[in-house]
C-alpha cells in the first residue's frame, strides 16, 4: 500500500497550529505549533520553521527555530539547522549540521516525549526569545 506523504511547498506560509495524522514534508514556512504525534515530519532543505514541534520522528534538512520533541528520533542532516531544545530518545546530528540548544534523551522507562505537549507553557526557547534584544545573539536557556 502506498504511504501518504503530504508536502507543503516552497511558496506556502502557514501561521498557527498544524495537526496531522500522516507523514508530512515541509518546504515552506511554518510559524506556530506542529503536531504529528505518530508520524514523520521532514523539514526539507527549503523549509523554514519557527515552531514548537511534536512528532514521532523529525528529519531536519532546513531550518528549525523552536523546541523539538519526538517520541522516536530527531535527525539533523548535513546543512540542517536547529536552534532550540530537543527531547527524543534518539538524536542523530550529522557533520555539517548546525545545532544550538539542549538535548535530552530520556532513558528507557521514562516519560514518552511528545505524549502531552503543553503549548500554553513557555519553553526555554520562547523565554530566551523574549529576553533577547533585537541585535543580541540568540541564547539557549536551562
Amino acid at each position, binding site marked *: 500500500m502506498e504511504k501518504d506523504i503530504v508536502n507543503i511547498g516552497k511558496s506556502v506560509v502557514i501561521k498557527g497550529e498544524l495537526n496531522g495524522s500522516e507523514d508530512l514534508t515541509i518546504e515552506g514556512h511554518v510559524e506556530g505549533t506542529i503536531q504529528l504525534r505518530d508520524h514523520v515530519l521532514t523539514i526539507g532543505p527549503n523549509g523554514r520553521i519557527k515552531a514548537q514541534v511534536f512528532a514521532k520522528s523529525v528529519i531536519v534538512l532546513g531550518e528549525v527555530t523552536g523546541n523539538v520533541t519526538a517520541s522516536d528520533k530527531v535527525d539533523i542532516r548535513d546543512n540542517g539547522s536547529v536552534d532550540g531544545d530537543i527531547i527524543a530518545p534518539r538524536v542523530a*546530528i550529522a557533520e555539517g549540521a548546525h545545532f544550538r540548544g539542549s538535548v535530552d534523551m530520556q532513558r528507557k522507562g521514562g516519560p514518552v516525549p511528545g505524549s502531552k505537549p503543553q503549548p500554553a507553557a513557555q519553553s526555554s526557547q520562547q523565554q530566551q526569545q523574549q529576553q533577547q534584544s533585537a541585535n543580541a545573539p540568540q541564547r539557549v536557556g536551562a
Partner: protein
Amino acid sequence: MGLLDRLAPRKNEPDARPHGAAADAVEDPVFATKALRKFLSCLTSRESPVLLDLGPVVGSNVSFFGEQLGCKIFVEDIYADIDRHVRNNKLEDLPAFLKKRLAIADGSVDGILCWDVIDYLDRPAAQELAAELTRVLRPDGALLGFFGTAAPRDTRYTKFIIVDEVNLKHRSYPALRGRQAILLNRDIIRLFPGLRVSDSFLLQNNLREILFRKPS
C-alpha cells in the same frame, strides 16, 4: 552498572562522515586523553547528569553522552561566538557578551567540556567566561579544559571527537582567530579561583589536560 559497562566501544560505530578511500585519506588524528576517563567518572556518579559542551556540536559526542551516559546536554559553541565577534569587528565586546552568554541557573551543571576554548580568548574574555563556568557548575561538579603548551601557530579550531574514554579524535577546521597566548599553570589556576585542580596531565601532543572540581 560500572563505568566501563556503560561505555560501549566507539571505533566500530557508524560515523556521519563519508566512508571510503577519500575519507580515509583525510582521517583525523587520534590522540590519547588521560583526563577524560576521570571526567566521565564524575558524570557517571550522578543520575541524569547535566553536561555543558562549549564546542561545536558533534553528533557522535551527543549520542555518547546522551544515549550511553543519560546526560542532558547543553551545546553552547563559544568558538562560533568568537568568530562572530571577529567577523563583526566587535572583539572588544566579547568579555561583556560572555558574561551574559550562559542562560543557565547557578550550580545546575554537573560537568563542563571546556575543551581548549580558553586558549582563543584574551585575558578579560577568558576571565569572564571562567567566572560564568564556575557559577553554573554545581558543587563537586567537574570541568575539563585543554591548554596548549606550544607556541601558537595556525588559525584553526579543533573539534574533539570522543573515540573512547582514553582517545580523542582531533578534527581541525578554519578559525578567524588563532590561539592568543600560552597560559602557564599558575595563570590557568588563577582564572578559576572558585575551582580546584583535581588532575593535570601534560600530553605528548603538547596539550595540557586539566580537570577542575568545584569544592563541595
